[in-house]
């Protein structure tokens, strides 16, 4: 326990002499041995840093602003629009590429397997077909999983949690790199072709974001190409705006839902929102869906038709029987309840599985083996279901892409095969639109059950794949089953069209799993192309979210938590007003003097035990009221800035030596962005260590500060709303007493028994 006086003493000490202070602390508190615990959800990883959303208004920045005239700012504005257009076009093209390749490869695979099955049905030896199917799937998935596990693990999964974190202000390493995009696109193609219970829609959002981040910087660090354009946008603030546009473009290309895309960005990410940004994001979304539409139309041979606005088309829902009446709304709400419960079950199962995976299956080769096994089992389950099904439907007049006859009568096909022997997207559309009577209730029931577990098992594998389509498929299957039983109960009333209930079931299931509200309603509405469905879909999603939230969180939030990401929600936990900044902050703070010795800076930066990124800059002044010195806060400098300074050797002595030396400009900082070299790569000689470095020009002279007595919600609000990375806590003499960072705030969480505190861990 520290009394206020001793606390003050530490504060003073830390400001006066830093090095000694740290030594002193280490001797005072005997360092505990590293405490090892198994991974759990109540951890925050040190791996994740914040983005610098706050602009550093140092002298260089002011100079540059003075230099750039008004007209130049107008061109900046135009450039923003150009970038958004390019984001839209490229995202659309990537979506087209994925769609076309998947269609062809999956078609090839299904044709090969179908021919094989047809051959062996007559001759006997169907177990070979099963082996062929399982091997094909497993080998394709193996390639997909290999590239993800060994080249870019961040490309695993749907990418939506990662983008959500990025937009929240967390810097996820590698998340917006070109390499990630390439792996993501190839990975998603391979996992869909490999027959896993996955969709290609979720990864589009990640792809769109990477494209946005890449284009807006006008260069690629991976390819070592700098196009010398858009240099103005090389900082986190601008990049993050473009990434939100890219995410929107991705949604819009995936579902043909431009407004849904904008709302997705709004709901999931962009904390910093203004109307111009919204309008630009909307522009990017529209361009994206239009590009996809026109290119796919040309590919399908009807160039002027523009009939495929998204990767998945729900088809048209405008026939007479697809309408709904007021009496059906309670039924829809009931479906929402079912969706919420099933979604919660899905999430809970996936939670245990993910925990197991993090703890035990962490080696890349094990992850690849797991993905292969899942692929083989998926094929086997599909085969066995098809083999055992006796549900035959006439082939004539149905739109089955790969009809499997198996033991059906000639001219009929196995109806289970329409669900399993197809890409998930096609199965969803079939469930929505096949005429009543195309599916046996038994078939649908078995399919729902099996696919539920398969999808749950698949999500979280080390392959890049989304969860949207599997959720829709599960929901569509039980929704259709529901519709069939409803029409059976009501003696075949005309209003109980199973397709409509399949749609509502799909919405309920997806809502129950991902718990998105506004954006998902609009996405579903736009994907069906029927505005009147807006109301029931909204009710269904609302119910599913309420019911689901009662049990567990949404899938994406759950995964963010399991990854130990310091994610800041909209508000601080409600019961945290009694906590003050003093308890929240980290202390003591490593400070720098305004004119600091180079050696000190280098030592602080290379200290591995404290990987700090922001350093308050202080200056000692004689105290007027009391005797002694007061080290008042003067500004804040970032690690990245210090590194650039050290790299260019901006030392006081050198400036005196060579007056011709070029002055450092903001451009030098931008050129180093976003991959600043580590301190180890910068060589500082023994002589140079004795030089002095003047930080006053480069530091942010007006960092945000709070007094020690500020409550946690207050600190949180300031931090969250301004997108800060460092918030300095000062006492009434303007002395630095602590520093609040993202991890200090994110560790408070409202758990089951009240306020919980997460611990920090190295991962």
């Amino acid at each position, binding site marked *: *326990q*520290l009394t206020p006086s001793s606390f003050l003493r530490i504060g003073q000490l830390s400001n006066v002499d830093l090095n000694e202070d740290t030594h002193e602390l280490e001797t005072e508190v005997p360092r505990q041995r*590293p*405490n*090892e*615990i*198994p*991974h759990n959800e109540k*951890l925050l990883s*040190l791996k994740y840093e914040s983005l610098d959303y706050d602009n550093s208004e140092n002298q260089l920045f002011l100079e540059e602003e003075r230099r750039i005239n008004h007209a130049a700012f107008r061109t900046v504005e135009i450039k923003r629009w150009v970038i958004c257009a390019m984001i839209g076009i490229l995202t659309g093209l990537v979506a087209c590429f994925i769609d076309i390749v998947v269609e062809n490869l999956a078609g090839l695979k299904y044709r090969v397997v179908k021919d094989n099955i047809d051959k*062996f*049905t007559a001759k*006997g*030896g*169907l*177990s070979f077909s*099963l*082996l062929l199917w*399982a091997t094909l799937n497993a080998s394709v998935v193996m390639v997909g999983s290999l590239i993800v596990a060994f080249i870019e693990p961040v490309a695993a999964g749907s990418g939506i949690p990662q983008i959500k974190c990025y937009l929240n202000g967390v810097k996820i390493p590698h998340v917006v790199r070109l390499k990630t995009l390439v792996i993501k696109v190839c990975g998603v193609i391979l996992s869909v072709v490999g027959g896993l219970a996955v969709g290609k829609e979720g990864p589009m959002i990640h792809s769109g974001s990477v494209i946005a981040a890449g284009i807006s910087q006008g260069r690629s660090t991976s390819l070592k190409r700098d196009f010398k354009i858009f240099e103005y946008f090389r900082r986190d603030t601008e990049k993050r705006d473009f990434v939100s546009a890219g995410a929107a473009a991705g949604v819009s290309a995936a579902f043909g839902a431009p407004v849904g895309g904008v709302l997705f960005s709004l709901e999931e990410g962009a904390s910093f929102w203004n109307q111009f940004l919204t309008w630009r994001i909307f522009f990017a979304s529209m361009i994206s869906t239009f590009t996809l539409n026109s290119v796919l139309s040309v590919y399908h041979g009807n160039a002027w038709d523009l009939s495929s606005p998204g990767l998945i088309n729900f088809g048209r829902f405008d026939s007479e029987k697809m309408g709904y009446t007021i009496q059906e709304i309670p039924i829809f709400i009931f479906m929402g309840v079912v969706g919420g419960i099933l979604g919660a079950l899905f999430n809970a199962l996936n939670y245990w599985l993910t925990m*197991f995976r*993090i*703890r*035990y*299956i*962490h080696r890349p080769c094990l992850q690849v083996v797991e993905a292969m*096994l*899942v692929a*083989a*089992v998926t094929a*086997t389950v599909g*085969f*066995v279901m098809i*083999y055992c099904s006796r549900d035959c439907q006439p082939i*004539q007049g149905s739109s089955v892409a790969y009809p499997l006859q198996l*033991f059906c*009568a*000639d*001219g*009929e096909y196995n109806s289970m095969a329409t669900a399993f022997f197809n890409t998930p997207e096609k199965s969803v559309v079939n469930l929505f639109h096949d005429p009543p009577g195309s599916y046996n209730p038994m078939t649908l029931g078995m399919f729902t059950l099996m696919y539920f577990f398969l999808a749950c098992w698949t999500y979280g594998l080390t392959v890049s794949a989304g969860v949207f389509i599997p959720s829709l498929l599960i929901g569509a299957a039980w929704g259709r089953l529901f519709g069939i039983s409803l029409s059976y109960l009501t003696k075949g009333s005309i209003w109980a069209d199973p397709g409509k209930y399949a749609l509502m079931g799909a919405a309920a299931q997806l809502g129950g799993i991902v718990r998105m509200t506004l954006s998902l309603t609009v996405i579903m509405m736009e994907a069906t192309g029927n505005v009147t469905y807006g109301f029931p879909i909204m009710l269904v999603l609302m119910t599913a979210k309420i019911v689901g939230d009662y049990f567990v969180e949404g899938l994406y939030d759950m995964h963010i938590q399991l990854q130990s990401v310091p994610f800041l929600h909209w508000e601080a936990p409600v*019961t*945290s007003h*009694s*906590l003050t900044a*003093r*308890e929240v*902050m*980290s*202390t*003591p703070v490593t400070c720098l003097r305004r004119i600091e010795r180079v050696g000190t800076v280098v030592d602080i930066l290379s200290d591995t035990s404290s990987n700090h990124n922001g350093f308050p800059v202080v200056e000692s002044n004689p105290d007027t009221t009391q005797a002694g010195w007061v080290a008042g806060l003067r500004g804040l400098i970032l690690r990245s800035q210090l590194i650039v300074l050290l790299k260019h050797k901006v030392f006081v002595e050198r400036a005196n030596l060579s007056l011709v030396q070029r002055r450092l400009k903001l451009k030098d900082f931008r050129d180093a962005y976003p991959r600043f070299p580590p301190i180890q790569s910068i060589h500082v000689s023994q002589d140079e260590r004795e030089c002095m470095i003047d930080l006053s020009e480069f530091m942010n002279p007006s960092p945000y500060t709070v007094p020690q007595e500020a409550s946690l919600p207050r600190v949180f609000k300031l931090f969250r709303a301004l997108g800060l990375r460092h918030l300095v806590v000062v006492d009434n003499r303007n002395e630095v007493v*602590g520093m609040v960072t993202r991890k*200090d705030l994110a560790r408070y969480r409202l758990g089951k*028994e*009240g*306020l*919980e505190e997460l*611990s*920090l*861990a*190295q*991962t």
Partner: protein
Amino acid sequence: MAPPRCLCRAPLPALALALLGLAAAAGPRQTPALELAQELAEELWSAGLPGDLPELEPECRSLLAAFAEGSAALTDCLGRRARPVRLCQGCHGPYRRLLAQYGSIARAVGNSSESHNCAKSILTSDRLQIVVTLSEFFNETWEAANCANCLKNNSEGLSNSTEEFLDLFNKSLTCFEHNLQGQGIDLSPNNYTEVCKNCNETYTKLNDLYNHLQRLNRQGGESAHSAHLCIDVEDAMNITRKLWSRTFNCSLPCSDTVPVIAVSSFILFLPIVFYLSSFLHSKQKKRILILPKRIQSNANLVNIQEKYS
């Protein structure tokens, strides 16, 4: 404004004469259509309608009568051949004739004046436009049946592949009959194995030819409509397949149960082994806790929880 057709004024007596002439030419076998036309004329006559009433020219009237006759013939043909479907084989003649008749109505120009033509007076003079409706109906039926698919390009007679198919079809039917004859009438469903064995060759040939035709058709055609073969072929195949699969129960029995179960249970067993072994042998990943640099105050978590619980 007077409609343009009022310009031509065929005097009613002349019209009646012409009609009579036509009737005489038709001889004793008066078609119902002609009778109707005559009745209509008589009705008009008796009603004492003014002389300038626009009426059909004799040429047009004869064209109309021919169309009526043709459509009656086609309807008759279609109706008679509805089950089992033999539309395209049997009715392509009447259909072609009807097309020609309709064409001549649409093209024909009356001789009395340039501004007059039969197309206008027959096809577009009233709300109902029965001739157009009829001809549309026939065309749609023909297209829905997809008859063009099994006719020659000039639609005279069946195409070679269709002939071949029907030939095989007849052969298999004969084979079915032949093999069933030996047995009694009250066959139990299980006793058809004889048929299955003996006719398998013909049936398979037929089935293969059908599938082949279908594939050819799908490759050639682009629109969704031409994905179908013509209805005669489809129906013939359907009948045969139904006989084969449902009545004779010759479709493939569920086979290979044991190997399939063995292979699938092997594959399903693999993940269990995998998870168990990774649980037992893989080293659990540990996280190293980092002690945060904080003021150890009284208001730590335990206190918070006490306060709020």
